[in-house]
């Protein structure tokens, strides 16, 4: 609008330089105006995100006597259990993300193929678990998976196994429980991106003689990748900070980073011990997001800012 009016006022003049200057000044004014409009949001982000994170970082630099020191970070190398916890956290995140892709991709594909009405009914079943507390769902899995739980009882009654399978209170239990909770975070962005794929592209491929498998492999799959990438990023990052399910399903043998944070805040008399754990997780997560962005392009990590 304002650019238009500026150029209108300059119509009839042959002086192009003057015109360009006016345009540039106008553009600058507009940018400043937009910044002013954005400033409440920017201020909010600064006050509720930047300041607390800065404070967290600051706290992590003090030891129990209140002296500036790197003791909170040195601990990660002195005590073997922290490295172990760190490795476990990433192992769980990788495996859960993998199983989510394994189950989530076919599910999203099926949803995308269904007629709209059937798809929306099925989507409700995907979203439904969101409305139940994580705690309740985790306990439900415990009832199903434990030694005298539903699955083991059935399998033993059917005579398929003699000894109960170790499904709960170990790594397998954590992966099963977390996959269930994380699945919607993968399916929803993936479904959305699959719905935007132009069916005409697929038809064109078939018209030109491609088999259905080749059409899927060469056209549909590459076009669904941005959605898959954003789903993978969301699931992976959420897994890194997960607490409830590993705490209840891991039988104390799968210790994740968030559980150490909880322990550190009560074990140490300074906030720094827990704060340092938070800073490390944040830094590693940001580094990973950077890596994803570099590998998969801005569309993967830009899911939050897109449109």
């Amino acid at each position, binding site marked *: 609008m304002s650019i238009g009016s500026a150029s209108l006022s300059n119509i009839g003049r042959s002086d192009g330089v003057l015109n360009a200057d006016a345009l540039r000044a106008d553009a600058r004014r507009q940018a400043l105006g937009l910044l002013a409009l954005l400033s409440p949001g920017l201020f909010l982000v600064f006050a509720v995100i930047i300041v607390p994170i800065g404070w967290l970082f600051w706290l992590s630099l003090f030891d129990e006597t209140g002296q500036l020191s790197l003791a909170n970070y040195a*601990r990660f190398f002195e*005590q*073997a*259990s922290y490295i*172990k*916890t760190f490795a476990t956290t990433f192992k769980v995140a990788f495996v859960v993300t993998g199983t989510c892709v394994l189950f989530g991709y076919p599910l999203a594909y099926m949803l995308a193929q269904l007629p709209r009405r059937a798809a929306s009914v099925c989507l409700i079943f995907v979203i439904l678990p969101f409305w139940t507390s994580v705690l309740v769902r985790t306990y439900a899995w*415990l009832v199903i998976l*434990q*030694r*005298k*739980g539903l699955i083991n009882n059935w399998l033993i009654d059917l005579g398929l196994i003699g000894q109960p399978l170790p499904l*709960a*209170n170990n790594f397998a239990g954590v992966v099963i429980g977390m996959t269930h909770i994380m699945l919607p975070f993968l399916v929803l962005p993936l479904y959305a991106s699959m719905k935007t794929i132009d069916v005409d592209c697929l038809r064109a491929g078939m018209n030109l003689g491609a088999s259905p498998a080749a059409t899927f492999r060469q056209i549909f799959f590459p076009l669904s990748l941005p959605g898959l990438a954003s789903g993978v990023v969301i699931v992976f990052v959420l897994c890194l900070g997960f607490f409830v399910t590993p*705490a*209840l399903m891991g*039988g*104390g*043998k799968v*210790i994740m980073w968030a559980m150490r944070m909880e*322990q550190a*805040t*009560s*074990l*140490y*008399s300074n906030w720094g011990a827990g704060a340092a754990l938070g800073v490390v997780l944040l830094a590693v997560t940001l580094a990973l997001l950077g890596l994803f962005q570099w590998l998969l392009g801005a569309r993967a990590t830009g899911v939050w800012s897109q449109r």
Partner: protein
Amino acid sequence: MTKRLCIHGLAAAGLLASAAVPASAADTITVASWGGTYQEAQTKAFFDPTAKELGITIKQDTTNGLDDVRLQVTGNAVKWDITELGADECARGSKEGLFEKLDYNVIDKSGINPKLVHDDWVGISYTSVVLIYRTDVFGDKGPKTWADFWDVEKFPGRRALSGSQATETLSVAALAKGTPIDKVYPVDIDGALQSVDKVKGHIDAWWTSGAQAMQLVKDGEVDMASIWNGRAGTLRKEGAPVSFSFDQGVLTADCMVIPKGSKNKDLAMKALARFVSPDLQANLPLYVDNGPANEKAFETGKIPQERIKDINSAPENVKKQVLQDPEFWRDNLVEATEKFNNLIQQ
């Protein structure tokens, strides 16, 4: 700490609502405890009778432990006048200067174990760590001592120990290698860790909350476990096939403190004096399995004779158990916990 994860939010909300009788700020104090059935029992045993006697209102809240107190005191936002903690938390908080000094002219300390009477904290009740086993697996010939628990050949089966309370697991580990009850403290930490190392490969779950320990035993996920006596008692009442005794139990005390900066310090002192008095202490075992900290409670005649043998802090049961030393853990908790974590996470 982690045992406080089992707070029953609803129960706490109910308690808060019932305490919402209006009263002027001057004669109102706020007391925080662990919530759940334990705090309900405390309400009937301590809080309600005290409020009535002193003509004050006692509001209630729930706590997660020492970090809550630390947050309030260091943040200059003390909202509690009295709060309960584990005894080792009291010893640590005392070292950090988080509590007001107690006035033993107001509070009568006689009858309370001197190890639980300090300048700024005082014992309030006891929990025991006991060995529980399933009678549908072992009959009545189950593991009776921690040495039995450690003996995986004589007592094959699935096992659980506390992974979150390193202090308790190290205490039973010391007992398991044959340390006599009166020689467990001061704990030989490296020796106890070696003892844990021996059984580590046979532990199927390291529990992190009282509710989890109970669920593991109840659902038959494990055949034997270390567990808090209150939880064990609940299992027995619910009819689960379990057996436990106070032999070689580990007595851990809870304590109460007045957080530094409490606005109703004097009134809180009077209320605390009532909480630890023998006649109110004798009420506690009528409602819950946590024994009174004041042994004079057993002389009041309020507790029925047949109930006394089931109370962990009854004199004849105390003799069978190790009293966990809060001051030892004040000085060794961090180092021992880190070493313990390194070991069980290998």
